[in-house]
């Protein structure tokens, strides 16, 4: 078989798949974003940029900003929790590493919706945590743990924490332990060694983990509904509402494109950061 035919055969299915299920839908979304909603939720094919003007209206723009803020908090919390976890797994005895990693991945064996729902069982006013606190006599009245932004952040951190831990683990496990030892030999305290040696050497993984947590967090719409009780609107909810409630597909498309734009910008930023680091060693 000639080389070119083999290439075509090997690349063909993948490229066809991408063209059919990524390029065509995205192009459709792009096209729709310049149309208008018909009175009964259809699409009026009148080209204009009305939807983009609407998207920067303080109401909708504010929702985008709030989503960015929540996703940023989620990412920061996931990093603070995820780094020590990754570090401990990577420095644990070899025979424990695989079982520990399995524990990190274990939640993926069940559905995201069910895992999110489980938090309702834990956090609600008559839930496990409140009942335990009351049983221990720590509180008289049940605490309002659910249906607020804290519950929303908890749910998102829980859901996406493995995406933070895995790249960090991979990076820390690759570090040559002698570099740390050298730092200690030269008189650095263990904290100083961590900050000036380990952290800079794992910067790329930190950036990757942050992107992996930030991107799905900002687009999530199930968790704000279930754990936020619908009282917080994120951009994902707004897009969902445009398609399934307001039946305003053109505006929903515009919002979806803006979200894709934010995510692309972040990915480019990360790629640029990685390239720069590689060039400068």
């Amino acid at each position, binding site marked *: 078989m000639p080389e070119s035919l083999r290439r075509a055969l090997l690349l063909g299915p993948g490229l066809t798949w991408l063209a059919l299920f990524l390029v065509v839908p995205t192009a459709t979304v792009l096209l729709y974003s310049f149309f208008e909603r018909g009175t*009964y939720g259809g699409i009026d094919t009148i080209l204009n940029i009305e939807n983009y003007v609407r998207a920067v209206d303080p*109401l909708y723009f504010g*929702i985008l900003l*709030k989503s960015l803020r929540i996703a940023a908090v989620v990412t920061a919390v996931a990093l603070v929790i995820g780094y020590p976890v990754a570090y401990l797994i990577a420095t644990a005895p070899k025979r424990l590493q695989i079982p520990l990693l399995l524990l990190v991945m274990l939640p993926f064996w069940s559905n995201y919706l069910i895992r999110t729902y489980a938090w309702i069982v834990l956090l*609600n006013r008559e839930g496990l945590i409140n009942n335990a606190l009351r049983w221990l006599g720590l509180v008289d009245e049940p605490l309002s743990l659910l249906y607020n932004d804290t519950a929303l952040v908890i749910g998102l951190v829980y859901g996406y924490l493995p995406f933070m831990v895995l790249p960090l683990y991979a990076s820390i496990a690759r570090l040559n332990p002698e570099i740390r030892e050298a730092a200690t030999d030269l008189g650095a305290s263990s904290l100083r060694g961590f900050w000036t040696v380990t952290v800079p050497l794992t910067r790329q993984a930190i950036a990757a983990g942050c992107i992996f947590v930030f991107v799905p967090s900002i687009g999530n719409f199930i968790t704000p509904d279930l754990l936020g*009780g*619908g009282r917080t609107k994120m951009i994902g909810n707004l897009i969902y509402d445009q398609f*399934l*409630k*307001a039946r305003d597909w053109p505006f929903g498309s515009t919002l979806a494109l803006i979200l894709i734009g934010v995510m692309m910008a972040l990915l480019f930023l990360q790629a640029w950061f990685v390239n720069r680091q590689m060039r400068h060693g």
Partner: protein
Amino acid sequence: MPVLTRWIAATLLCLATTLGGAQAADKIVISNWDAYMPGDLLENFTKETGIEAELSLHATNEEIMGKVTAGGGAGYDVIFVTSPFVEALVKLGLAAELDHAKIPNLANLYSEARSLAYDPGLAHSVPYAWGTTGLCYRSDLVGGSLDSWWDLLRPSDALKGKITMLATDRWLLLPGFKALGYSANTTDEAEVAAARDVLIEAKKGLLAYDDTTFYSKLVSGEAWLVEAWDGWCNYGVYENPDIVFTVPKEGADLWADTMVIMAASENKDAAHAFIDYVLRPDVGAWVASNILYKVPNAQAMEGLDPGLYEAFPNLAMKPEDILAQEALRDVGDAMKLYSRTVTEITASE
């Protein structure tokens, strides 16, 4: 590449069977809300008529509207939608005109249910269940009785943080409209803005917006008072008899969930047969006792077990009491205003 050839052949064969299957005669596709008809209804229908029926589910009116407007109604024979959406379907030309000769059981409906303003004379739709929206609360925890939308919108301190409201546009706005004495279908911008301000204030006393699990929040005691559809409140009553439903004194809406045949249906006879089957007195009674919603079927309601009326008092609401509420109508372009207003409310801090 014999392997590849076989793969392609197998795929084509699969496709052919799927496509062929969809064209089989006397098979209808029905879209309804989940658990909104008895689990054995379609099975029994098939047994009696020989017509195969496939159930597809939608979570909201808006979802099924999205599906049928995108596909011109193709792929569905009968869909269940709430009254204002019937008007939209008719205006879009997606609803088939009904042939009343093929639905003799229409005679079982209350006469009131045949002259509802959204579809006079039932030209395009047949009501399946009907009712209203009101307050559903734990009388044992609230202590006393509630009778006003303001109990929900400006709650007492004891109730704060223990209230849920419905999340879909029309019903999220309804308490605001009715409390201020406006029409449930108002399109007046000043009125909508006034209701919005009341609802933004009310959000501070809310536990959550909830369309689906509000009754279980009542049962668990997480919520003490919820805005609910009468029938769905009954699911709570079923588990805790201290749960009470009441229509606020300022009035509420009248909604009817209807069955509509798609103009694009290729099995209209079978679709008519399905509607006729649902309207049979025994089937209607089975539906009402199963979903605990009122059906607008006089024969069926008379045949209902009297114990049910005792256990679920709102089932006993008479047609004239239901008609005293304001029918939800399609508001056309004002849906954009509603949708924006609801976003303003739910995104408020």
